[in-house]
């Protein structure tokens, strides 16, 4: 196990310049060795990390994430915030998780173990040990590297939040001491919170995973070696450049499927590896098709998938808490046995998690501080992909006549929520987990869809491509996204982003009133002379055609705080249609038409560009109540209740 370390370091030294000519600025180089001890649910690990000080200042300490310590006891920040429950899954107190750093030393140099300290940069919770710092005897100078060797043991928790085990299934994520990001003259190394995900620097990972032979193993990157050991174990070596994390999985019940995926435009060739638990093997084709769809959609929309492998992990039954999570070149999906085809959970999760490979994996967004840059952009991408492949009105659900599309699904989350937080905020500072989720996922996704419908699909497509191209393998911020959007569209979009990204308010325009008042003949005093309506014609007289005139009023109101220019479509009884525009700034405006026809209906934003609008119902108004629809809905409800009554009495 140890023999390969010097060889690898030699590769780094001699081929260093070539490595740094990779896709990313390779700040870190990890050489990891992991031995799975399944009976004890732990991993014995050794890490050799080379870190490049890419800043202009000397660095005198190193900071590491020890994410697994979030599951160490009930007083960690993660546990205090979550109450031991994550996305509906509960902690098993019989199986805590933690990481123990046995020692850390500079390669062939000073022992740093005595200087190891746990720090709590976010909340000062002294019980939290998810961030560790070590002092260095001499600072690392700008553009210099330091190599440290760490021995550690990772005890996996019973999975309830991404990483852990259930039975013989292991999802090993965030399992090794991972160095923080030295950025703007300081370490960006946040604690693990119940609502935060991850952030790290790009680099090279070479990992030897040793597990009993009966286990099927999958991992980030390409498998470059595999050998049997005398003790009944096997060692798998994986290697990957231009990634910022490494995860792996092991389970004896995985069935491995491999498929070569190629695309001509853009040119790409990659190997799809599906590790499907035998309980879900009948759903393998659903996973495979969804992954093909994801590869095609993201490659064509944003840029060719650049890695040689993509691994889909299907968590074992009972381990759904490990599902729906992204890691570089590997992600976990989710399903359950006998899931009907119309419930598109496996498809949605597969496309979504694969998509993170773009907005978290390649575009290295900081999920602690600006999670929307990953989750929101990816939700937008997922909505578009799901709509394309599974239908606009049924992309999420199509069962028993009930159809739900991705846009409707995300709108439900946004419009039914309280408004306490904006989209851009530190992930751990939202009022609740629900507020975090709806803001960084659904609201941000719909915000981009609104922008797309505002600017046009072509312009938005160019924005997304340009953003991906410019910021892949780097760490962008919200400002960078806005800058790209403005550059590509050639438009000042500050009015848009300033509202939707930083304010918790809402967008809600409405037709607040619609009136058609008949204007009678002149009756009263006009210019000092009394006019009266003409008397009715006597029988036999020729009737004079007197077309009725109407004063038609359309009142448009702004109920939300966000100000967006609006289109209004007004339809008259004679079929005439009038389009109006309004800058939307005042609280209300009125359009008046004096015509010989009545207004029939009016609709603000008739093309539904503003998918962020909090209430579609009040966007339109008809002069007369649509009785059949109301009757149908009410009778439908009554019929349902009649059936219920007949059941409870029989």
């Amino acid at each position: 196990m140890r023999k390969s370390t010097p060889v690898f370091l030699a590769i780094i030294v001699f081929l260093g310049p070539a490595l740094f000519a990779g896709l990313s600025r390779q700040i870190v180089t990890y050489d990891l060795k992991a031995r799975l001890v399944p009976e004890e649910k732990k991993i014995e690990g050794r890490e050799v990390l080379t870190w490049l000080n890419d800043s202009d200042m000397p660095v005198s300490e190193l900071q590491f994430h020890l994410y697994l310590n979030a599951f160490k006891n009930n007083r960690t920040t993660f546990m205090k915030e979550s109450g031991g429950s994550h996305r509906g899954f509960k902690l098993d107190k019989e199986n805590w998780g933690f990481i123990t750093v046995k020692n850390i030393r500079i390669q062939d140099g000073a022992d740093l173990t005595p200087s190891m300290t746990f720090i709590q940069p976010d909340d000062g919770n002294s019980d939290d040990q998810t961030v560790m710092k070590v002092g260095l005897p001499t600072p690392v100078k700008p553009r210099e590297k330091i190599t440290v060797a760490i021995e550690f043991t990772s005890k996996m928790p019973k999975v309830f939040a991404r990483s852990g085990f259930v039975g013989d299934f292991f999802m090993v994520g965030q399992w090794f001491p991972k160095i923080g990001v030295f950025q703007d003259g300081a370490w960006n190394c946040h604690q693990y919170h119940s609502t935060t995900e991850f952030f790290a620097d790009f680099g090279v990972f070479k990992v030897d995973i040793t597990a009993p032979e009966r286990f099927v193993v999958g991992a980030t990157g390409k498998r470059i070696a595999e050998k049997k050991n005398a003790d009944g174990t096997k060692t798998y070596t994986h290697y990957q450049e231009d990634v910022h994390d490494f995860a792996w999985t092991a389970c004896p019940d995985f069935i491995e499927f491999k498929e070569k995926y190629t695309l001509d435009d853009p040119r790409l060739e990659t190997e799809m590896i599906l590790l499907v638990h035998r309980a879900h093997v009948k759903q393998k084709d659903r996973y495979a098709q969804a992954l093909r769809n994801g590869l095609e959609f993201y490659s064509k929309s944003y840029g060719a998938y650049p890695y040689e492998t993509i691994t889909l992990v299907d968590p074992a039954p009972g381990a759904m808490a490990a599902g729906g999570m992204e890691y570089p070149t590997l992600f976990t999906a989710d399903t359950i046995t006998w899931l009907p085809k119309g419930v598109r959970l496996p498809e949605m999760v597969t496309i979504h998690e694969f998509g993170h490979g773009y907005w978290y994996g390649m575009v290295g967004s900081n999920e602690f501080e600006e999670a929307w840059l990953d989750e929101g952009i990816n939700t937008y991408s997922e909505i578009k992909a799901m709509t394309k492949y599974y239908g606009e009105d049924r992309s999420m659900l199509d069962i028993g006549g009930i159809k739900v599309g991705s846009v409707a699904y995300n709108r439900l989350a946004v419009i039914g929520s309280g408004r306490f937080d904006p989209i851009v905020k530190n992930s751990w500072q939202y009022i609740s987990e629900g507020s975090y989720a709806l803001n960084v996922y659904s609201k941000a996704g719909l915000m981009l869809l609104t922008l797309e419908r505002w600017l046009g699909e072509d312009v938005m497509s160019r924005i997304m491509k340009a953003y991906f191209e410019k910021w892949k393998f780097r760490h962008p911020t919200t400002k960078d996204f806005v800058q790209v959007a403005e550059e590509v569209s050639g438009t000042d979009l500050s009015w848009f982003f300033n509202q939707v990204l930083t304010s918790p308010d809402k967008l809600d325009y409405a037709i607040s009133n619609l009136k058609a008042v008949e204007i009678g003949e002149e009756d009263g005093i006009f210019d000092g002379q009394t006019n009266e309506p003409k008397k009715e014609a006597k029988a036999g007289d020729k009737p004079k055609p007197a077309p009725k005139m109407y004063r038609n009023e359309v009142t448009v109101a702004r109920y939300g705080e966000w100000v967006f220019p609006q289109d209004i479509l007004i339809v008259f009884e004679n079929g005439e249609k009038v389009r109006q525009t309004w800058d939307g700034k005042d609280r209300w405006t009125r359009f008046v038409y004096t015509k010989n026809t009545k207004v029939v209906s009016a609709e603000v934003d008739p093309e539904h560009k503003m998918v962020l609008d909090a209430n579609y119902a009040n966007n339109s108004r008809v002069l007369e109540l649509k009785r059949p629809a109301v009757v149908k809905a009410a009778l439908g409800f009554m019929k349902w209740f009649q059936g219920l009554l007949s059941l409870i009495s029989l």
Partner: protein
Amino acid sequence: MNIFKCFGKGTKEATLRPKMVFFLWLFNVLFAALTYFLFAAAFGGALGTSAIVRDLVRKTDMNAVIEFLTSGGVVLGELATAVIILSILYVFMSIFLYGGILHSLVHKNDQERFAPIFFAGGGKFYGRFFRLTLYSLVLWIPAGVIFVIFDNLLKAIHRDPSHEQLTVIFTIGKVLFALFLIFLIKMIMDYARIKIAGQDSREVFQALLGSVKFVFGKLGRTLALYYLLGLVGWAAFLIYKVLNATFVQSSMGTILLGFFLAQVFIASRGWLKIAYQAAQGKAIDLI
């Protein structure tokens, strides 16, 4: 086969009593009608003047449903409260209806008018059937205990959540077992009510115990009769669903046609309720 004789007798008796079927349908409609007005007010208030409802007559638009669910929060709360209260009241009402049905079935004089007999029966047996409902706790509690034992037994057999198929099968099994227990107790109570009405007995608890003894003494046959009648209910439901799917309810005429069809189905449930009582009444003598 006495079961089929009972089945034939039950269905014949129910078919010969269209007025009783009408009464049962009428009570159902009267209770449910209130929800029509509440729902129409809520829906009309939230969406009635919006153009979004224009397409609702042709197809279900999830956006409209979402708007209604999110914008009609308070009204929906009131609607849910009304549904719960009406359901509870209907349970009390159904105790009255059982009295009416059984009194009519056991009444020998065909010359008398139907309505007075039905309502007299409802009033006459209300107290006894109400007590029977309370006494039925002696069945519901052991049934609950049996279900918990069954549940724990399944958990003991299947501790490993990784066998997901088994989890799903066991869950379906638990639901079916719970339904079996519920229907078993309802059947026992049917027999108890029939005994009370048939013998004009005031010994309610004895009637319940007698029914337990009768049902468990002839479990196979009583269950066979119960589920045979149940099949008729399912058949009626399927026919209703098939007919309902043959036309699109997009105009006021077709909407009302759909409503009429639903009322025929609800009436068939009333017919089935009478058939159950008549068939099981016959079963006491024949099986």
